[in-house]
């Protein structure tokens, strides 16, 4: 008993000493700009990936987008909303209207406030938006240790680092936290790609978290790639149409410009400078 109390006290003291040292150290570091400390907590640069949708002439791999939807629905949607997207929007990812109907019906959407204390739900319709997992930001905060899981509608655009960093973050868990010292319990999970190397999101993906309809093996790495592709598509679903339009219009305008150059030279041919 005494030994245990002693041990506890020692741990406490150790922790206290470390905290003191750290705060003093931080104070000194704040006075003298030392790169090391600040650098160690900036998110690491995500490895550059070769996405099919990269570059001016890229295009989305719609099979990966559809698999990524399965990961989103099975894993991410437990905490994250996709508020700006409607079920019918997924038709542009290659789903038929029957498939969209069936997909929407797998979701429960709130029908609005019913009796006091009761909320009623119905099956989703294609024109419904993806339902939010929490009724309010406060509910989300209460359920997630004080953090609100961000909406994912435009995440690949607004998240600094884009799809590369999303993939890196999803697969960046597992390493031992170099700052994890006994007696100090920081909130969240160690992830070198997160701000401050800490994220409130628990490691989301594991092997066989979902079953792919097309028979692809659902390894964690595959799931991460697919869901990142899905999020990139959801963030700018019309990028492919835009690129296709661009190729046609640019070719047309080039042709027109050549004709106009010829016409201009003919009209101006007899004008003395």
């Amino acid at each position, binding site marked *: 008993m005494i030994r245990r109390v002693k041990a506890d006290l020692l741990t406490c003291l150790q922790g206290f000493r470390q905290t003191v040292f750290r705060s003093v150290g931080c104070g000194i570091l704040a006075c003298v700009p030392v790169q090391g400390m600040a650098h160690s907590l900036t998110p690491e640069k995500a490895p550059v990936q070769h996405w099919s949708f990269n570059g001016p*002439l890229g295009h989305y791999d719609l099979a990966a987008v559809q698999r990524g939807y399965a990961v989103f629905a099975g894993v991410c949607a437990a905490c994250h909303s996709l508020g*700006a997207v*409607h079920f019918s929007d997924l038709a542009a990812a290659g789903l038929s209207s029957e498939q969209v109907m069936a997909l929407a019906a797998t979701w429960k959407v709130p029908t609005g406030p019913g009796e006091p204390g009761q909320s009623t739900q119905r099956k989703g319709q294609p024109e419904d938006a993806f339902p939010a997992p929490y009724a309010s930001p406060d509910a989300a905060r209460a359920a997630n240790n004080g953090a609100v899981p961000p909406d994912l509608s*435009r995440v690949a655009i607004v998240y600094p680092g884009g799809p590369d960093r999303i993939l890196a973050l999803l697969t960046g868990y597992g390493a031992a936290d170099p700052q994890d010292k006994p007696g100090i319990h920081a909130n969240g999970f160690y992830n070198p790609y997160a701000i401050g190397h800490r994220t409130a999101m628990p490691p989301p993906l594991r092997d066989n978290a979902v079953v792919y309809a097309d028979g692809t093996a659902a390894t964690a790495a595959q799931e991460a790639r697919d869901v990142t592709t899905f999020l990139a598509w959801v963030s700018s679903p*019309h990028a492919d149409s*835009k690129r296709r339009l661009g190729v046609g219009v640019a070719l047309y305008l080039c042709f027109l410009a050549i004709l*106009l150059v010829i016409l201009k030279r003919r009209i*101006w041919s007899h004008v003395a400078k």
Partner: protein
Amino acid sequence: MSDTVLEQQQGKVVQQAEAGIATRLATHMARFPMPRDLTFLWTVGAMLIAVLALMVASGLSLALSYTPNATLAFSSVEALERRAPSGWLLRSLHMTGASFFMLALYCHLLRGLIYRSYAPPRRGVWGVGVAVLVMVMVTAFAGYVLPWGQMSYWGADVAGKAVGAVPLVGPTLEAMFLGGDAPGTPTLHRMFVLHFTMAFTLVAAVVLHVAVLHGRGSSSPSGLSGQNPKRLLSFHPYFTVKDVLGVVLMALAFTLVMCFWPGLVSEAENYRPANPLHTPADIEPAWYFLPFYGMLQVVPSKFGGLVVSAGAVLVLFLVPRLDPKSHAATSPWWVSRFVAGAALSVLVLSFILVGLAGRHHVAGVWLTVGRLATLGFFAYFFGFLPWHARQARPEAQL
């Protein structure tokens, strides 16, 4: 019975008169004499008219699905972009159009400075043109607030505080602009109405700009010798084909940016909905306002920054007074060739550098760069132009 015949006859007369006006206008436009030595810099005006037409057309279509309400604006834009028929196309046309309009406007303005298009007898053309520039800037700012993303909200917040720095009337102006203590639904209503009405006011101002130009005749790169009546060509077909070619080349660049490099003209942070509780780390306006944003920050006093920043645009109104000599007055060759070139290079470089400083939050070395660049910018107008005017040979002055 005879009354109706009379009415019919009167109607015919009116119709003929109207057709007469239209025909006369068309003939005037087609036969309008233009200097033959105009370079492709003179087609930028035609590009601007084309982009303005595109902006009005796409803007009217966008307004059909937009809701100017702080809780609904962002989602109405999302719904428009994701689900309205060709909504994504309309919005990207409008977003790319804004950047291209400002870029072309800066080119047009620079051409005016290079070739002294503000010299008599075209001071009116220049004055109307600068008024158009001011109106375009107001319109562009109001339009940027409308999607109600993070940059929209915090841009309105910064602009409100800048206006609030005016002595005496500042707080009243700020309250009038925001319609409350912070940006919100009243701000959106104001910006929407302003953006919508300014578009048509702009069209009228551009018509006025062109009308005044047609009264005075076009300037030319070679000054008076280019404007010799014997060396003029009719607008059609010589300049119609040239302008159409210019517009097509611009449309090609427009298409490439809009379809393949849309990141050049969009701000990622503005795809986050406005959040009054979360200030973004970098509040940054659209690229075309960066130089003025930089000038706002390099001056230590808030009001001083506003004066310098607004002064950078308003000083353009003074250009015909600062450099009043006509094209007939000649300068020593080394002045017109080397000194003027160097001064213009300093002006352009300063404008770009102060914009970069604005982007880097005017801290550290960028503060010094921003201050020097601001001095460089104003040195052109208050140093070079008056000096240049004094270099004119008196015997050549008209």
